């Protein structure tokens, strides 16, 4: 059972690492942009998986942090601060702060109420975003320059930017892997499995769930910062509720609670969208039922299929 997964993982990482080389060899630099965008959404999906797949917290407003991270890059840039050393920590910190507020209020509820209240908070931020005229409102803002990191790291170079995103994805996966197996991870996974039991043995579960919620928000904020740099543009529509739905679909499609599954989910979902859209303008009529089928018959997602246990 381990072998195909490990093999897929190795093949996957090597493939991702080689994309720039292959793209350069084939003179197809577009794939660099495409895969980079996919990896950015993979970061968002992995961050959601931390709370959704491992912690059992069905947050339907995860795109909010994508937006917060994006604003944290675009707003300083708008005022002439282009340093990534300012923007990126701000993106992570601000999303963590927003997640702390949302989490504190939302985690008081559970079940479907939790789903709805996280959705409501994301909508609230969305409407806030489209209302602030100083920062582009609905139109959003153009990012005049990608985040600056001094001489060494130039995001304007597509290869450099690619490996930065790749590195961050690998780093997140590695940190996530450590985290879910550390004491903290055991607690949030156990909270998903059986929260009353966890309280009975002496864990005050709220603070651990909240911490996980904040960490996930922070990681997604980073994805938001990357996304603005990728698009060189910020729009509040990053926070629209269908975005949250998309990210959630990536997680489920790839396989919840698997860490690597959401990466696979992001790859397949975004490629599928691209291919179907090129094939017919009615691509959603295919994608919709496909989603239903996946939910009904492939509960463990693509990563689960790789593991091969029915």
């Amino acid at each position, binding site marked *: 059972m381990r072998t195909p997964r490990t093999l897929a993982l190795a093949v996957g990482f090597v493939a991702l690492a080689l994309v720039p080389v292959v793209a350069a060899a084939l003179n197809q630099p577009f794939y660099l942009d495409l895969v980079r965008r996919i990896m950015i959404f993979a970061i968002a999906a992995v961050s959601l998986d931390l709370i959704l797949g491992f912690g059992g917290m069905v947050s339907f407003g995860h795109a909010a942090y994508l937006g917060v991270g994006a604003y944290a890059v675009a707003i300083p840039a708008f005022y002439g601060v282009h340093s990534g050393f300012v923007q990126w920590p701000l993106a992570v910190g601000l999303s963590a702060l927003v997640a702390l507020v949302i989490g504190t209020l939302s985690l008081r509820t559970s079940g479907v109420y939790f789903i709805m209240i996280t959705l409501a908070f994301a909508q609230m931020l969305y409407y806030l975003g489209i209302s602030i005229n100083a920062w582009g409102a609905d139109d959003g803002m153009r990012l005049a320059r990608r985040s600056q990191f001094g001489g060494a790291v130039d995001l304007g170079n597509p290869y450099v930017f690619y490996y930065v995103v790749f590195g961050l994805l690998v780093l997140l996966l590695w*940190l996530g892997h*450590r*985290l879910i*197996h*550390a*004491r*903290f*991870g*055991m*607690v949030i*996974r*156990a909270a998903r*499995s*059986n929260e*009353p*039991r*966890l*309280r*009975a*043995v*002496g*864990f*005050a*579960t709220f603070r*651990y769930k909240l*911490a996980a919620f904040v960490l996930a928000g922070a990681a997604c904020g980073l994805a938001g910062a990357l996304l603005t740099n990728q698009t060189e543009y910020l729009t509040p529509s990053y926070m629209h509720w269908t975005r949250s739905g998309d990210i959630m679909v990536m997680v489920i499609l790839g396989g919840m609670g698997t860490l690597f599954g959401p990466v696979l989910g992001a790859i397949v979902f975004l490629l599928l969208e691209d291919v179907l859209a090129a094939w017919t303008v009615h691509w959603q009529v295919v994608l919709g039922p496909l989603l239903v089928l996946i939910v009904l018959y492939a509960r463990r997602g693509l990563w689960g299929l790789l593991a091969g246990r029915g």
Partner: protein
Amino acid sequence: MAEPLLSVRGLRKRFGGLVATDGVDLDVAEGETLAVIGPNGAGKTTLIAQLSGDLAPDAGTIRFAGEDVTALPAPERSGRGFARSFQVTSIFREFSALDNVALAVQAHAGHSFRFWRRAREERALREPARAVLAQVGLAARADVEAGALAHGEQRQLEIAMALATRPRLLLLDEPVAGMGIDESQRMVALLRTLRGRHTIVLVEHDMDVVFALADRISVMVYGRVIATGAPEAIRGNAEVRRAYLGEEVRA
């Protein structure tokens, strides 16, 4: 009797029209095993839930080791030495048996905001957990996924998780429920080893088990404790027989 370890006064809980516990008074001395018996729906499980802190009482006080713990939530009571088992088996099914117990150890080994070191490689968690598993007779099953354990083994695991928190007070809600004869005998043997070492409040239907373990028995009917006493006294108590079994006392 010195000051009891656990002292409950006037505990009351109402669900709509049903009074689940109606002014329950209980005293449990350190090291004592108190069995609470009574017909279905008498409020025994509600009592356990209030003692463990999972359910807030409408009225009444719970004192533990001289302190009022009525307002404390479950995790904090656990921190003071409460541990419970559930009537319906409650374990972390996706985790191994050892993980289950190690989590209980972890709960009392400082905070868990540790993000780096693999919990499964921490000897400080695994060794005590293995010891407790051995104590309840599950040493050989340590690496089996808890959900895949036999029913009786899952109940044993519940006890192990409670023990792993080094409790002063064990609240056991029908520990042999749904067990076969062999399984329940094994459980009784296990619980017998705990007598005296821990203070125990035991809710149980199986009279064999109750008489095998209890120092004292309290009988609950309609949310009230109608009698408390030594097992023999309870067995012979006509009022208990009538209330519990509904027998009309023959003249």
